[in-house]
């Protein structure tokens, strides 16, 4: 057995491992790579995302209104995390699907997470989402502007998103671009399976912390279903179905003009410079809303509406008598806090353990993550102090 590094090196050196490349793969990949490179230069940025919002009948308290406003912005700006999918394309079956994705002027589909959402996309950067209850949001990513309407309340929310990345390649929200790159990412073929009465061919694509399962109809070459599973975020899974391409979508569907007679709730979302402090403030604000001073049960923005509804129904929030200005401020605090999370890379290994923990509990760690390049973790405790902790001393 080896005693030290040099002996281990000697052992490895004795191994004769076949690493001779296949010239056909080498040449084929070269062509494919340069094609992708050239294509990336030519294609305009197109973006798509998803929204969630509280339903009218539970939007009674200021707390849930704030949650609604925050969730809108959070979901808009983080949607790609739930729809940042890829489809494999090593199979011939995908050729038509990929072609369609490349050429699509419009695309619609249904996304089902905790709520069913209809999503429509139109070049160059328009998208529209429709929630149960008629809640509609339109976003023009080319202008960085959005409009949400709540027909049952005759209210609308205008959104302006500043400091979005200028470079499309860095843009998190570029789901269509991701769809277009699906062909190169297949890493597992699942064979056929019957789903909803159709025999479909499945493929799997694994990214950093996301597993996408894509189902294609081998007869019609239709993209039928995409299931996205988030390895480090249980409960955030999304299923996308009902894909349609190049259906006629009138420009009026993407109008940013609010309906006459509606009253305005305006939100400005600055996506720059969020830090750990923003998360701490979010946790502080939330604990001030709850009657018992507990922190949110989850930090998953896609679960936020559900959690808010349940807590509201259970009477867990205080009376929430706040000014409009305060509500706007709180909404922004929530938004920035969640944005901090969504910007953390998978390597940060962030964990949230704040459920049922009350503000002031100095002995309980409620959140921790490893900053980029750091050897230690930042740990936030129930009294919102922060300490640097060695990995081996993290809470179990």
């Amino acid at each position, binding site marked *: *057995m*080896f005693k*030290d*590094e040099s002996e*281990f*090196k000697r*052992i*490895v050196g*004795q*191994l*004769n*491992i*076949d*690493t001779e*490349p*296949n010239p056909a*793969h*080498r040449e084929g*990949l*070269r062509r*494919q*790579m*340069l094609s*992708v*490179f*050239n294509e*990336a*230069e030519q294609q305009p940025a197109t973006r798509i995302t998803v929204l969630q919002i509280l339903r009218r009948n539970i939007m009674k308290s200021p707390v849930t209104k704030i949650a609604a406003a925050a969730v809108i912005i959070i979901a808009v700006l983080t949607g790609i995390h739930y729809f940042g999918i890829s489809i494999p394309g*090593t199979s011939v079956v995908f050729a038509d699907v990929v072609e369609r994705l490349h050429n699509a002027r419009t695309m619609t589909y249904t996304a089902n997470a905790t709520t069913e959402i209809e999503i429509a996309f139109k070049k160059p950067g328009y998208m529209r989402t429709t929630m149960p209850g008629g809640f509609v949001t339109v976003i023009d990513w080319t202008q960085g502007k959005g409009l949400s309407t709540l027909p049952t309340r005759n209210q609308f929310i205008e959104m302006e998103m500043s400091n979005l990345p200028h*470079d499309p*390649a*860095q843009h998190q929200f570029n789901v269509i671009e991701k769809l277009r*790159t699906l062909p*190169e*990412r*297949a*890493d*597992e073929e699942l064979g056929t399976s019957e789903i909803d009465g159709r025999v479909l061919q499945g493929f799997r694509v*694994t*990214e*950093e912390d996301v*597993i996408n399962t894509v189902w294609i109809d081998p007869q019609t070459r239709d993209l039928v279903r995409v299931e996205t599973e988030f*390895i480090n975020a249980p409960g955030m899974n999304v299923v996308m179905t009902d894909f349609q391409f190049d259906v006629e979508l009138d420009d009026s569907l993407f109008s940013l003009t609010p309906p006459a007679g509606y009253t305005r709730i305006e939100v400005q979302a600055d996506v720059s410079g969020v830090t750990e402090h923003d998360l701490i403030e979010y946790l502080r604000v939330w604990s001030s809303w709850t009657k018992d001073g507990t922190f949110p049960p989850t930090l998953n923005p896609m679960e936020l509406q559900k959690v808010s509804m349940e807590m509201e129904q259970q009477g867990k929030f205080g009376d929430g008598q706040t000014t409009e200005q305060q509500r706007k401020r709180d909404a922004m605090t929530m938004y920035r806090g969640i944005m901090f999370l969504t910007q953390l890379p998978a390597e940060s290994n962030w964990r949230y353990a704040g459920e049922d923990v009350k503000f002031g509990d100095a002995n309980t760690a409620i959140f921790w993550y490893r900053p*980029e*390049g750091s*050897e230690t973790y930042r740990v936030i405790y129930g009294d919102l102090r922060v300490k640097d902790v060695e990995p081996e001393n993290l809470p179990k």
Partner: protein
Amino acid sequence: MVGAMAKLFERTENDDLVLRARTQADALGRLYELYYERIFRFCVHRLFNKEIAEDVTSTVFLEVARTIRTFKGRTVQDFQNWLYAIAANQANAYIRKASRRKKLLETAVGLTTVSTTEGTDNSPDWPQLHTAILKLKPQHQTIVTLRFFENLQYEQIAQILDVKEATVRVTLHRILNELRNHLQSEFERQT
């Protein structure tokens, strides 16, 4: 002197290639030629299967094609570190699935040739060694591969993994202990 100057010139030329590759396909193609084999070899060492290694190598270079316009590095060394980082992440993502790890374990034996020229000691053969390596954390597997199969210096491994050099040294020390324990247990079990 001439050799040193030539080396300097070569380095400068390749650095220039990295800058040009952000906008010029021919420069990217040349970088590809420079690094394809190295990344493929890394993937084989990491994944023990040439077909899987081809898939992951493809993912790496297609990722490069999509994102090189925003790559901030300026030298060929930066580019190499970036490539290895992408390759390490992609390989880890592949291995993360337990079913795949099992498949790797099952197939690697048949895909490699073992040559233990000094076979009189209890040195592990390749199947035993890779079985032990696969029991490590993904990042630790990466460190072993970069250090012993790619022969990279600690400094470069630290840059690729975005950690301090001292961390790599300490971690590698622990990894070797862990590997030794795995292998010793296995050896004792078999004898």
